[in-house]
């Protein structure tokens, strides 16, 4: 039994390791092919990551990616592809920022209100895709992507000064108004390094909650079963339609939360400059992390590192785009390597079980004991 366990660990890690090594090698090749020193930019990035302010940026970005990736991962475990995390994240950030700026409540309540509105908005938006899927069989891939486009127009319309937006005097930016300080989430001051968003720790805590719900609750079991085999899950008593809708709602709520670190800890408003693209990077993060809360954490860290440590590459003459190339290669490498490792792992286990049984290693059964 011990032998098979160690095997499982190696096979579990083989996928991501293989993907990362491949991406790294391919990125180096791309750099060399374009006539640039392949190792120097990597060295510069590692050096840049040694500074406290870059580290703060990395930690904060990890929290953001982590939340968004959890949102994606819940869907993935149900074989649902919530490509709409980016739209849900933006809409939720905007609506919750509007509500947050419109009221002033005692601290914890103010923050709680903003968070709840964000979760509700995100859940609502992805719920639309969920309902379309369960009532009409519409692929959630298609509907969530379209909802992303609708989000862009909807947000642009809502933020017009004649609607809900505010154009601060002298500024060319559009915002949702400043949230009063009671709605600011306290962070950890790292001195010269900046401030670690307090919500980053909320994100980590949610990772623990995610692990518990998925692995230790009845609901989580049903969810995983539906993802592994919808027919077996249905035969076992799962209401597939309810499950799909619930999973989409939870995914949307988590997506809504991923805007909270920046909204509550940094900008305190939603403006035209609010970071975008988080939802799409999160898909790769979740894939690389194999939908596992610890795997996603490391994956989020890696992507945050790639994002932030490359910030000053251009000053040394290297294109920042190499990190995007690497992130893109990781997507493909992950999908291919996981499939390869999965098939290999399955074959190997069947082999090993056959061998062990032949060698007489089965658990002692009553029949044998009796004999």
């Amino acid at each position, binding site marked *: 039994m011990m032998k098979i366990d160690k095997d499982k660990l190696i096979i579990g890690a083989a996928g991501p390791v293989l993907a*990362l090594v491949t991406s*790294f090698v391919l990125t180096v090749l791309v750099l060399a092919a374009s006539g640039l020193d392949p190792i120097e930019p990597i060295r510069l990035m590692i050096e*840049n*990551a*040694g*500074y*406290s*302010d*870059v*580290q*703060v*940026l*990395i*930690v*904060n970005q*990890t929290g953001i990616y982590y939340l968004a990736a959890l949102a994606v991962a819940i869907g993935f475990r149900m074989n649902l592809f919530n490509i709409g995390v980016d739209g849900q994240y*933006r809409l939720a950030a905007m609506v919750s920022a509007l509500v947050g700026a419109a009221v002033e409540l005692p601290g914890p309540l103010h923050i709680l209100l903003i968070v709840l509105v964000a979760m509700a908005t995100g859940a609502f938006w992805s719920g639309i895709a969920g309902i379309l899927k369960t009532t009409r069989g519409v692929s959630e891939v298609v509907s969530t992507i379209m909802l992303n486009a609708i989000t*862009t127009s909807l*947000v*642009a319309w809502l933020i017009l*000064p004649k609607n809900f937006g505010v*154009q*601060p*005097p*002298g*500024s*060319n*930016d*559009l915002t949702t108004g400043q949230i009063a300080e009671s709605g600011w989430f306290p962070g950890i001051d*790292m001195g*010269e*390094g*900046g401030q*670690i968003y307090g919500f980053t720790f909320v994100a980590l805590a949610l990772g623990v909650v995610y692990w518990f719900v998925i692995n230790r609750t009845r609901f989580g079991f049903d969810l995983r079963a539906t993802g592994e085999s919808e027919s077996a899950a249905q035969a076992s008593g799962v209401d597939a339609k309810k499950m799909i809708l619930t999973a989409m709602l939870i995914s949307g709520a988590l997506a809504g939360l991923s805007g909270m670190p*920046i909204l509550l800890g*940094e*900008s305190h408003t939603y403006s*035209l*400059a*609010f*970071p*975008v*693209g*988080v939802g799409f*990077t999160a898909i790769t993060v979740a894939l690389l992390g194999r939908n596992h809360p610890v795997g996603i*954490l*490391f*994956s989020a*860290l*890696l992507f945050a*590192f790639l*994002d*932030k440590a*490359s*910030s*000053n590459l*251009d*000053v040394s003459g290297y294109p*920042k785009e190499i990190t*995007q190339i690497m992130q893109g290669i990781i997507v493909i490498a992950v999908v291919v390597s996981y499939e390869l490792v999965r098939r290999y792992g399955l074959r190997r286990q069947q082999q090993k079980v056959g061998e062990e049984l032949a060698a007489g290693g089965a658990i002692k059964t009553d029949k044998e004991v009796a004999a």
Partner: protein
Amino acid sequence: MGIATAALALSATACGKSSNDTGSSSTSGSKATKVAIAYDIGGRGDQSFNDAAYAGLKKAEDELGVKGSEAEPSQGESDADKVARLTSLARAGNNPVIGVGFSYAPAIAKVAKSFPKTTFGLIDDTSVTAPNIANLVFNEEQGSYLAGVAAAKTSKSGTVGFIGGVEVPLIKKFEAGFTQGVKDTNPKAKVLTQYLTQPPNFDGFSKPDLGKAAAQGQIDKGADVIYAAAGLAGSGSIEAAATAKKWAIGVDSDQYNQAGLSSYKDYILTSVTKNVSGSVFNLIKSVKDGKPESGEIRYGLATDGVGLADSNPAYKKMTDVIAAVDAAKKNIVDGKITVKTAP
């Protein structure tokens, strides 16, 4: 790599030195003065806004002997990233540090406080101010008004087109001025307005194919003069107009003289120039001369901060158009016409 980074982050965050500790905060005058510009979305090479800023930097390098640095924005970055970028530029001893674009406003507000001896330039925003911030702003609506006058007088079909890159308040200034200029000159003229993308999708400033398709659509609807305020995407509009043998009006720099657009230059009637390069150069010079600019520095028609280029010989021959434009310019400078900044 993930594990190594995790270890790095967890162990070193509290005790690592800041990236800003490296490099000297030089105040000596014996070495060449260092200046820096941080670009807006799209970075250098947009044939327009960012390139104009670079032109100012280059002129300062050539004429004033300063040493320039440039920094590009990252994908999906937040204010914190901008703060880090500006901080490291300031720490490296650059003075002035110029943020090209209104999205730098919150970041400059923070960083300017930490570096009171450094001058910060902020283009297109006056909402954040400080003794060491110079807000370089332009009256784009005035220049656009003149373009509207030129367009209305040149158009034979009575229909002209406006293409905005991204629907943000800044570009709406261009639209407002242009439309007003057209209507004041020919009340019966029609102005077709289209924005290429909505924020946060800023592709409308960088994708020429979007500009080309939009211009084509307007030409199909009868427009024979097209004014594109869309950064790099505008070059697509210019291409479409030239191919259909219609007029195009450029923006930000004198696009008649841009190498990348030379095949279409004959159809570039004029350009609404926004003297971004001049503003950058002036700021750098003021710092070098020891009298740094501060507060709102407005570049309007009166100071030739904005205007219509007249490089195209075909345009120079249109004396009646030029007369109308000059008259309008005088009226604006004299205060007889107030140009709207929002449609």
